[in-house]
């Protein structure tokens, strides 16, 4: 193979030192990040604009689906940790949890705050894919990262249309799909390559 680089934890700045293996530390960080996302969605669903009786059903459904995904991701990461004989941290990643601070109660503000959570989570898991040695753990991280970047896309679109008539795009079965504003394609997938610039340090959530 011409490209001789190898996967490796030691190449990551900010890697935590400790007794746990690099894979365990990465997975513990991952599950802490998804725990924070679950908490953020729980908080969002308490808001009238998301979980109230007058909330848009499509938006409510989007948040409920994403919340369920994150809960499933926690289970998947916890299972991967169990396979490695390591405990799941249980706690939420404080830095990620702190990102959900909507600047107001309007839908756009809530979407913006959740987008911040999702972006960091997705990038943290993308980073993990390139670091994990264990094949199963890597597959889990990749499957999760892809899904969370889908959350990012949906929330980016929601943020853009929040407050306007185009919110009906999130009403399923109404045939409004062709009525998207033209610019939303660039909003949903702005870059040809996703990055890890906002990823949390891979050892941040390690509990040993």
């Amino acid at each position, binding site marked *: 193979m011409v*490209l001789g680089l190898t996967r490796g934890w030691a190449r990551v700045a900010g890697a935590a030192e400790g007794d746990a293996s690099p894979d365990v530390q990465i997975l513990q960080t991952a599950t802490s990040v998804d725990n924070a996302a679950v908490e953020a969605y729980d908080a969002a669903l308490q808001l009238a604009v998301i979980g109230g009786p007058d909330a848009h059903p499509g938006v409510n459904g989007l948040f409920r689906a994403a919340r369920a995904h994150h809960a499933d991701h926690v289970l998947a990461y916890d299972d991967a940790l169990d396979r490695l004989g390591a405990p799941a941290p249980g706690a939420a990643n404080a830095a990620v949890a702190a990102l959900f601070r909507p600047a107001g109660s309007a839908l756009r503000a809530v979407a913006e705050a959740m987008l911040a959570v999702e972006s960091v989570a997705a990038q943290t898991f993308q980073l993990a*894919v390139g670091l994990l040695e264990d094949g199963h753990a890597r597959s889990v991280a990749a499957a999760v990262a892809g899904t969370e970047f889908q959350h990012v896309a949906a929330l980016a679109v929601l943020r853009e249309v929040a407050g306007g008539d185009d919110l009906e795009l*999130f009403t399923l079965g109404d045939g409004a799909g062709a009525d998207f504003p033209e610019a939303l*394609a660039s909003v949903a997938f702005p*870059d040809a390559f996703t990055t890890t610039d906002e990823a949390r340090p891979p050892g941040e959530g390690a509990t040993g």
Partner: protein
Amino acid sequence: MTGSASVPVPPAFGRRALLAGAAAALGGLGVACSTSGGGDVSEEDVTGITRLDRLEGDLAVVALLASMENLAIALYETTRELVAEGDLDPLPAPVAAYLDVAQAQHEEHARAWNGILTGSGRQAVTGVNLTLKTTLEPMVGNARDYVGMATAFLEVESVTAATYLAGIQATENNATLKIAASIHPVELQHVTFLHLVLDREPLPGGFATADGARSTTDTIG
């Protein structure tokens, strides 16, 4: 991002042939004969790669992914041609915008993979994944409106994303892995957007899957 090879020009997708009742067979070997990558190039290399499994290890995965990207590009180019020639109604603005942005991204992805191939002394893949193309052709041939075409887009994007995940699971080389990990989410974001366009649940599953992934036994051309 990696990649310095010229943008490949995939062969036409072939709906016009289908519409005319002609055979769907298209293209030749579809693999450029690149001499820019350096290194030892075998006789097989310069006569064209039609079987991905002739490449060793990760390079076979890289070539497979390039062929998938080229297929998406070809599909989107064909869609534009169908509209331009009146075989398909003009696309709604969001779908037309989708084509422009998504195709440009697929071209960048193809350049990244072909950069690895040519950097390894191999040829850039300019052909498409013929195995999946065969599956898509009836969808394209039967499409009467943007919904039909977007459904074909969704198929190629979904299968491509699945193939990326399978590639991530199989790849040994870390640089290749990281590139795949930075493209896989983008293909899935295309899927999400198409779900919205098609009035479907935008987040249908909690985990990306490799179900339906193409393999290195596929043919390209």
